């Protein structure tokens, strides 16, 4: 490999830099960012809507544009996640955990900028992987059979413990509820309908889009009516760009998430949503201050956004080498390939080399375009939080409805989203974290498929997992991670006052903070509270974190005073 890549890559750049291809690449990136920003409307529907254009355009510009939508959407998805706690794409759900917390502290700008930078770094680095090692890596992915996928799903499930918030039981309840949601519809293998109540429409299942729009966007609109105040941050925006320290701190996170996102992205079926969660969890484990995750830890934003971009590049490896799409968006893109009679697969690199290399080169260029496009937008978006909420709420509502509707062009998905909105609101009130539910909803289908296949593969049953080296390794890793997370929770048995500290969602940051000095009360059972503050101050990275600590004391105090 190696040397003989440069020549075709250079030719690819020459092809990608022609005005026509450059122009369509740009259109793709802009559209991608836009559909990423709009909650619900994802790259899948955008690519599907534009697919008929392939009847008019030449293959190279068309595929460049459609791919641009795919990876561009990963840049855009973080915007609403950070600003209004509504992930534009499912892959940005973990971004919302810390991004929104940062925005509440007035650091929406740095959060947005870091997510763009992390996207760029991870996107570009993983493209290097794609350029040089695509065929080798594709072979690597082939070692993953059904038992390995099953083991991988177990690993991903171990993340639930860390996403559980205050109460492990409630976290697990949320996770199992995710399975319930995913089970509605046809069984992924046998096609037998479950929990459909005789409805044909429910037979195709509940789409993630309705779930995520409901739990995040509609629940948000519901609960803000309740508050009758603007949820949008009144805090002053403290700086639009990340500080040098932010960058230094997030850089290792970007690299780690690139590796995780890219390698998991090689496996068909590992969507950006899954890898973003895994990268987020890994970062939390690597961090010296894991308790700050969920409260505006910038490394969490960088990890999630880096991973989902790295996964998009990783996903092109099985797509180009074997014609295997890793997710719905790439499946539609594969349809675009087919329209032109470009058969992805081992022969694509030989038969259509100029096309493939132009596509890969266009992705480098696209990433540069996207960061140029997104960094200046940071200021604009960050100011969006200043838009009065009465104006923002209808916009959120309309785009949610359209997003849900566009899944299948059926109103049923909108109704489902509304139902999930109510569920999401209830979960917030009852302090049941919704993130585990989303994670298991993504994982359930693949988990069930891989168990069934593993069981069918021989008479060994589930023990087949432990007879294959790769699946055994992953199983052991999953076990270790589970034990370590459980141990971590055990060490820090949360007391009731801790709700705000551990829960990723119920941590509300009232705007009063600027006006009122916190009342410090130190009853005995809240002894751990000052300790945490001390811990935070030790790494004193910004005023905000320290503020965050003192707020905790204030809340603890309030409760006692009541």
């Amino acid at each position, binding site marked *: 490999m190696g040397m003989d890549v440069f020549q075709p890559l250079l030719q690819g750049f020459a092809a990608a830099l022609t005005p026509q291809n450059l122009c369509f690449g740009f259109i793709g990136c802009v559209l991608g960012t836009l559909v990423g920003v709009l909650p619900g409307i994802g790259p899948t529907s955008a690519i599907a809507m534009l697919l008929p254009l392939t009847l008019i355009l030449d293959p190279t510009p068309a595929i460049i544009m459609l791919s641009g939508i795919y990876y561009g959407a990963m840049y855009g998805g973080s915007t609403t996640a950070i600003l209004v706690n509504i992930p534009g794409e499912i892959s940005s759900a973990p971004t919302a955990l810390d991004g929104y917390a940062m925005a509440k502290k007035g650091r929406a700008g740095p959060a947005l900028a870091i997510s763009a930078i992390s996207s760029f770094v991870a996107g570009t680095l993983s493209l290097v992987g794609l350029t040089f090692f695509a065929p080798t890596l594709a072979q690597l992915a082939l070692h993953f059979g059904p038992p390995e996928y099953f083991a991988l799903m177990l690993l991903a499930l171990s993340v639930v413990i860390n996403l559980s918030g205050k109460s492990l039981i409630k976290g697990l309840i949320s996770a199992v509820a995710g399975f319930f949601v995913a089970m509605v519809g046809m069984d992924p293998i046998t096609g037998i309908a479950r929990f459909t109540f005789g409805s*044909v429409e429910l037979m195709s299942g509940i789409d993630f889009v309705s779930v995520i729009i409901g739990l995040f966007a509609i629940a948000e609109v519901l609960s803000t009516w309740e508050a009758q105040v603007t949820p949008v941050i009144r805090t002053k925006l403290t700086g639009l760009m990340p500080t040098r320290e932010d960058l230094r701190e997030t850089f290792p996170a970007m690299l780690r998430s690139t590796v995780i996102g890219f390698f998991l992205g090689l496996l068909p079926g590992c969507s950006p949503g899954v890898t973003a969660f895994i990268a987020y969890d890994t970062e939390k484990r690597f961090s010296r201050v894991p308790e700050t995750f969920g409260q505006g830890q910038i490394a969490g934003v960088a990890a999630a956004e880096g991973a989902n971009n790295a996964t998009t590049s990783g996903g092109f490896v099985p797509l180009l080498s*074997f014609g295997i799409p890793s997710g719905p968006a790439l499946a*539609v893109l594969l349809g675009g390939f087919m*329209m032109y009679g470009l058969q992805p697969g081992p022969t694509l690199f030989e038969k259509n080399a100029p096309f493939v290399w132009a596509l890969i080169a266009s992705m480098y260029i696209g990433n540069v375009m996207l960061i140029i496009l997104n960094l200046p937008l940071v200021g604009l978006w960050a100011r969006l939080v200043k838009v009065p909420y009465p104006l923002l709420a209808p916009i959120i509502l309309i785009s949610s409805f359209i997003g849900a509707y566009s899944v299948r062009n059926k109103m049923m998905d909108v109704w489902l989203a509304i139902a999930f909105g109510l569920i999401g609101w209830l979960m917030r009130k009852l302090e049941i974290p919704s993130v585990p539910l989303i994670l298991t909803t993504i994982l359930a289908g693949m988990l069930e498929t891989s168990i069934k296949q593993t069981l069918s593969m021989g008479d060994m049953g589930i023990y087949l997992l432990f007879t294959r080296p790769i699946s055994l390794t992953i199983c052991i890793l999953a076990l270790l991670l589970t034990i370590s997370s459980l141990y971590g929770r055990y060490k820090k048995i949360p007391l009731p006052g801790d709700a705000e500290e551990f829960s990723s969602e119920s941590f509300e940051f009232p705007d009063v903070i600027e006006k009122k000095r916190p009342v410090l009360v130190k009853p005995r059972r809240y002894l751990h509270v000052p300790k945490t503050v001390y811990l935070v101050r030790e790494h004193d990275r910004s005023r905000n974190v320290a503020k965050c600590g003192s707020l905790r004391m204030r809340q603890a105090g309030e409760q006692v005073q009541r």
Partner: protein
Amino acid sequence: MNKSNGEGYPNKPVQLIIAFTAGGSSDVQARIVEKYWKKYFNDQPLAFEYKPGAGGQVGFTEIARAVPDGYTIGGVNVPHILLQSLSPQATFRKDDFVHIAQVVNDPQLIVVNQNSSIRTLNDFIAEAKKKDGQMTVGIVGTFTAHHMALLKLQDILGVKFNAVPFQGSADQNVALLGGHIDAMIGNLNDIMRYTEQFRMLAIASENRHHWLPDVPTFQELGYSFTSDIRRGFSVPANTDPAIVQRLREGFQQICNDPEYLNEMEKIGQPAAYLSGEDFTKYCDQYYEEAKQLIDKYELNKKN
């Protein structure tokens, strides 16, 4: 109103329901048809509507329940619609459709990895007997064309397999590439990408296919076995026979257009035109066979 004869038809855009996602094989094929549609149908456009889900059942139901005025046509897959109408959760009947034409006939093959020691169908049978029911054969889903083919094959070859179901042909192909299954039942369209990695043992069609001239048919090897997936177009039952006639004629013209055939070759789908009448006959025949097979293996039994 041109109710009694198909004369003015169509005088407005015709809606085409695709029961799979945009960009799927069914959509790609229908897009090629769309290119020629205007030429043969009064220059009226074809409006695509995607109703994916439940292995096509959502969309097929939509077609079956559409207003039978000729302005809603749908892409149907056989045996999908037949098997779905036989299942306990059926939402339409076989006779809810009037078929216009068959456009694609995608035969199935027995495929093994190039590195496998199995070289011929006889090796395959011997190996299956040796492994005594433990030979893993990948299929797509259950209650599908693949599943039926596997069951039929067990009867015909007199062996037992261990079926490993996959969600789609893509993951099935990867599993075979990675050597996680011993063999698989694949469709011609899907395996053409891997002609160098896979070894095709036999094709379940009546004649050899010109894309794989070296692959023998089951017929040649002494087994009477054919199995395939077909794509066609249909309208809901009770559509005016004159309009059906008009549609059938139009599709016949499209499907014999040399340019159309050329493009079908390009997208890698084996074009095979069959008139609506013949297609219906085929469906009826398959329906009866499948019914027997399902009864024999008690596939509809609960628990």
